[in-house]
């Protein structure tokens, strides 16, 4: 009984304190001059999104505004909740990187109902009529570049693909890869498996594929983290010399792997540029200017020849 009342007393004190501070704090936030923006990523466990976020932030903070960054941890329900939290907090604009390109629909409707413009970054959404615009790498081209690079060094090729097929950006990369591959009849895809786009997801899948297809001599993991997972599996099986890995991304880790000769090439994206462009489009829209629906950001092949200059340029 004593303890209960003590706890209640404690709660009461906290409550009283909060009331006092809350009343004081309420004014600057609502009356402040800066706008508030929110961004929700499918994961922050990938340097790509850290870079993208830095790009967004640089433009938004240059305008004297504020950005709240949330991590949905590949959880569609959490992403839905994260977005409604931001909308109800009163953001002026929303940047979304969807976990599930179809499942995000409810959140897009909610944003539209509230009159908050949303811009999709990196991975597209299916219901594109609900968003202001989509800013993403030219992922089909990135897939083509990877296939072309592979064709120069590995023919005939027996290829496995480590996919992340819930994500449209990855679907596009594989589509471009296969499209280019069709030009080379001696290059053949043995199997496509889910590597989840992460190092820890790709590693065991690659090991299994090596067991099933000893003749594999090329891998297309759809991003740098899964390429690192594939490389780790190949190394531990002693097969890295015989297998060429080509991927899409261009992260610092990926470029380092190219320099050390483990990764052949990566079709580099420019995440900071995606972030900066997305933020600029948002400000254009808020200023009443028309914004195009699809903005494709360049991709560029990075291999051993240009790895050093690329790393410096970034």
């Amino acid at each position, binding site marked *: *009984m004593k*303890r*209960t009342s003590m*706890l*209640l007393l*404690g*709660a*009461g004190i*906290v*409550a009283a304190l*909060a*009331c006092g*501070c*809350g009343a004081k*704090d*309420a004014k600057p*936030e*609502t009356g402040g001059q800066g706008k508030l923006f929110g961004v929700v990523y499918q994961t*922050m466990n990938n340097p790509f999104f850290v870079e993208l976020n830095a790009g967004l932030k640089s433009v938004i903070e240059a305008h004297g505004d*504020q950005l*709240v*960054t*949330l*991590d949905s941890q*590949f*959880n*569609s*329900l959490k992403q*839905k*909740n*994260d977005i*409604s*939290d*931001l909308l*109800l*907090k*009163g953001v002026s604009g929303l940047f979304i990187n969807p976990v*599930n390109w*179809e*499942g995000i*629909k*409810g959140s897009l409707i909610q944003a539209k109902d509230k009159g908050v413009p949303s811009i999709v970054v990196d991975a597209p959404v*299916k219901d594109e009529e609900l968003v202001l615009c989509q800013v993403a790498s030219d992922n089909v081209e990135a897939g083509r570049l990877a296939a072309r690079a592979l064709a120069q060094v590995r023919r005939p090729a027996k290829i496995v693909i480590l996919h992340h*097929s*819930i994500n449209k950006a990855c679907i596009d990369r594989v589509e471009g890869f296969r499209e280019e591959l069709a030009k080379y009849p001696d290059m053949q895809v043995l199997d496509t498996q*889910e590597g989840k786009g992460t190092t820890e997801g790709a590693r065991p899948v690659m090991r299994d594929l090596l067991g099933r297809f000893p003749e594999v001599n090329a891998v297309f993991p759809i991003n740098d983290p899964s390429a690192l997972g594939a490389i780790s599996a190949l190394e531990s099986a002693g097969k890295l010399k015989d297998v060429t890995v080509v991927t899409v991304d261009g992260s610092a880790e990926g470029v380092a792997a190219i320099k050390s000769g483990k990764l052949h090439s990566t079709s580099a994206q420019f995440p900071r540029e995606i972030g900066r462009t997305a933020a600029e489009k948002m400000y254009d829209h808020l200023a009443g200017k028309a914004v195009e629906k699809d903005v494709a950001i360049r991709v560029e092949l990075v291999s051993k020849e240009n790895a050093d200059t690329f790393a410096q340029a970034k």
Partner: protein
Amino acid sequence: MRASKQLLPLLGAVIGLLLFFRMWVPNLLAPENLLDLTQQISVNAILAFGMTLVILIGGIDLSVGALLALVGTCAVFVLDRKLALAQSSLWILPAVLAGLGVAALFGAFTGFCASKTKIPPFIITLATMLVARGMALGFNEGRPIPIPEHQTLFLGLGNGRLGGLLPTPVFVMLLVFAVTTVLLHFTRFGRHLYGIGGNYEAARLSGIPIVRNTIIVYMICSLLAGIAGMIHTSQLYSAEPASGTGFELNAIAAVVVGGTSFSGGIGTMPGTLVGAIIIGILDKGLNQAGVHFSLQYVVKGLVILAAVFADVIRRK
């Protein structure tokens, strides 16, 4: 009497947390924001009500997250058939029945194993979790299956509002809360569960039907996972075979924060509801206060630990 004594500090914590976050989020207590909170916690709360019964009898169910994905996928698989009948929005009935049927089978199997074999429920449900996840990923190569747009009733399950105000998931959550509360606190079945969890040997000797009750408890938990799964699926406009990972842990967190003892025999349904609310306020408050996402994990972990520690001290 005991229930109210346990509930008061929890309610104090709710008020404390709300007022605490209000320091950074002035419109935290706006009606729209609070209604959104109830909607956000509905899936977790429904899972947690089932989990409360399981933990009360000294068990655990790790499979609810995977089962949620499997049931949602099965339901949409049925909804998506290219039959003339499936064009009607009333086709929701076979879809829901198929989903709940799968859930009931899983629950019955788990309950049977938990009561008839000496395998710990942790291990049984670890195994059924993998089986359910594998079966869910077997549909459509693990990719999401969109819900056909003419299935308005099923889409309304997660996105509709009753009377234009109360979100359907919240209505379902309150309904499940009412039913499970009556079941646990006002029936002989409920009293038996406290007996089984409190003192297994005494319960067995006094003739409580342990096997039957255990099977029923796991079936209820699985069925509620199924209901949560269909709401979740509807909210996403598509079944996502890979979704629900880790949902069991969030549900367990709500149960223990709500004052249910992990060793069984102690706990209440209203406590669990408040536990789910506390977890929900934490998520919303940290998000809206703009706390860096890395710090959010730490704070959430510490609050769960503190809540359970306070509970343990009070019981001494």
